[in-house]
């Protein structure tokens, strides 16, 4: 027996580290048995099956359900709104509660989007979305996962999220605002030396007399105090906050000033940065 094994044999781990994630885990339940999910899921078929396939992130089942529905003469709009989107709503609820995880969300999102695409082909045009948003990663910055999550959350929540990519020149951001007139724009930067792009974007917009209702700025090194040092902006903390911010702009006509003040309330949880 080597020395580390000998030491290890004496160790009572409870004095060193506690895996609270394991300690607090409740019993396993099937996702469709969760009470919130039951409230969200449609009762009638085939919507129920369509939603369930999304809930399970099962792309194949989702596609065949959607095709079946279309063949049975259901309207593509109904399939999207009463089936696919409901499934996604249920997924979001489970994610918020901590029963579902990011990969679930991503796979469900993929399943939903595939279904929507099929429906849109039948429709012959893009389906109605809640609104258009624009997202980008600052020029000179390669870190794009946060932005990818933001875009995914927006799409999963029914927004038409335009993704400009990473290392995006400021001029392209301005062009996109002119073109899409987004109801919300998000910028991600993970470096002290790239977050400085945000105020430049605002300045350029103002020069051209353009405006967005709010410009969510987030990313690993970005600080609230920095973001609040220029106008139009709101400091964004978690990617899954994004659709809540967008919703509150859309539904409650919140301005960027109000978003700053009511952030915690709008996203519905304690946010240390905003306490």
């Amino acid at each position, binding site marked *: 027996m080597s020395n580390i094994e000998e030491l290890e044999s004496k160790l009572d781990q409870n*004095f*060193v580290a506690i895996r609270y994630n394991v300690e607090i885990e409740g019993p396993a339940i099937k996702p469709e048995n969760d009470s919130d999910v039951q409230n969200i899921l449609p009762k009638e078929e085939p919507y129920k099956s369509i939603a369930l396939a999304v809930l399970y992130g099962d792309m194949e089942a989702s596609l065949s359900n959607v095709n079946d529905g279309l063949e049975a003469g259901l309207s593509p709009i109904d399939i999207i709104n009463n089936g696919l989107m409901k499934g996604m709503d249920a997924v979001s609820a489970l994610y918020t509660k901590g029963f579902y995880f990011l990969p679930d969300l991503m796979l469900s999102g993929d399943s939903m989007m595939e279904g929507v695409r099929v429906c849109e082909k039948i429709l012959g045009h893009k389906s109605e979305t809640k609104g258009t948003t624009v997202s980008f990663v600052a020029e000179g910055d390669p870190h794009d996962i946060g932005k990818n999550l933001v875009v995914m959350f927006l799409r999963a929540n029914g927004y038409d999220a335009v993704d400009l990519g990473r290392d995006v020149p400021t001029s392209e951001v301005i062009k996109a605002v002119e073109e899409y007139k987004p109801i919300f724009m998000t910028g991600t930067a993970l470096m002290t030396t790239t977050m400085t792009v945000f105020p430049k974007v605002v300045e350029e917009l103002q020069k051209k007399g353009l405006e967005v209702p709010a410009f969510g700025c987030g990313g690993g090194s970005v600080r609230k105090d920095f973001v609040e040092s220029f106008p139009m902006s709101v400091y964004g903390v978690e990617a899954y906050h994004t659709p809540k911010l967008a919703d509150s702009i859309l539904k409650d006509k919140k301005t960027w000033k109000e978003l700053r003040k009511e952030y915690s309330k709008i996203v519905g949880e304690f946010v240390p940065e905003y306490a």
Partner: protein
Amino acid sequence: MKRFTRMIYKNPEEIIFGNAKFPVSERWNIQFGAGYVVPEVKVAPQEGSEASKEKMIGECRNIAQSACQRAVSIGLPSFMLEQEHVFQQTNYPEWAGECTQIQAEILERYYDEYGISVALRQTPADIRVEERAPGLRGSDYDNKIEESMEACAANGASDLCIESMGGKSASDYGISRGDIKAVLFGIGVLGSIDMEYVWKRIVNICKKYDCRPGGDTDCAQANTAMFMAGGLLDKDIAHTTAALARAMGAARSLVAVECGAIGPLKDCGYENPIVKAISGVPIATEGKNAVCAHSDLMGNLMAATADVWSNESVYHRQEMGGTTPEVWLQATGYEAALMNTALQTGTGETLRDIYTLTDKYRDPQGLILAYDNAYRIGKAIVNYGKDPYLRARAAALEAGKIINEAVDSGKLYLTRFERDSLDNALKIIEGLPLDADQFTDECLRTYTRKVPEFDPKSYEL
């Protein structure tokens, strides 16, 4: 009042982190010195939070919430949150009560939900001003301290501390001039007198509640010397002078325990290893995870004897790695975890010894606090245990001896400034009277004249 005239520890080898002869329990299922080290975190309220009670409460809530969140997120079995009051929190006892209450609520929620062991230390500010009559006793400020202490105890603090300032007037004068007699007077005599006044009161308050009297620190004197001494290349105070002040500080901080404080003693008392060796109470210490706030020359050594391992009040703001309560609790939490692993695996003594040796010869200040040397200073103190002046004097002489031995054996090298300051100080101390009253009289004559802030009435002298 009981005075220590014998060592509770029978030999230095017995002294080790996470273990104290007299462990302390506090609410929320936490023990100190009972075989494991507890990490501590504290964060200074942001600028502007002092503007209103509501802001300060929000600030305190936020600090507690962030710390709890990180604790469970990295799997800490236990931790202590300390809040060091700013002026307003103590001057308005209502603030003290409500800030304590919100932090207690949050800690309790995490205790209930996760079973994590927690503790809440409140450290009201010593806002007394000696040079403004009536000085240290009975002033408005003095009364506010008492009320704040009680408000904390009544509203969920699991223990109380203070950094009391008695004797600062004289010691400040002495430290900045290398006048070791003034330093000894300020710490050994005046500091010890004021401690009695302050601590009898705190102990009485704690008796009424489920709240423990923690401890004091010689921040106002020995830390002042340490901070002014600075790094190796600073040219202000000799590090040997600071070492002597520290040794004296142990004789003074011991008074809290003699009045009934049971520990864990307050983190920034770098003299705590000596007090632990004498009295057996658990101690908080700080060192290499206090870099956020200051630079000491014994970052590892101070861990060797810690029962609570702390950071130091830091700006409350965002870091890339989270907010500062999160970042710094993680820092102390990981160090405590290392110590606990060592204790669990029977390698605690080895870790203690390498902690110690890392800094033992970096600077004379670390040298005298190495647990073996701390023990020697403790013995010098208890030899004169009944006399606060003589024991502080003995502590300084023993510290000087320890330094000289290290120099003689070629383990420590001193600069000329350090060498001269030490020789000079030891010569003066050796020549001082062996009678406390005589010493006090002499000092009263000298320093009431030389130190305008010094007010004998504050010490009933």
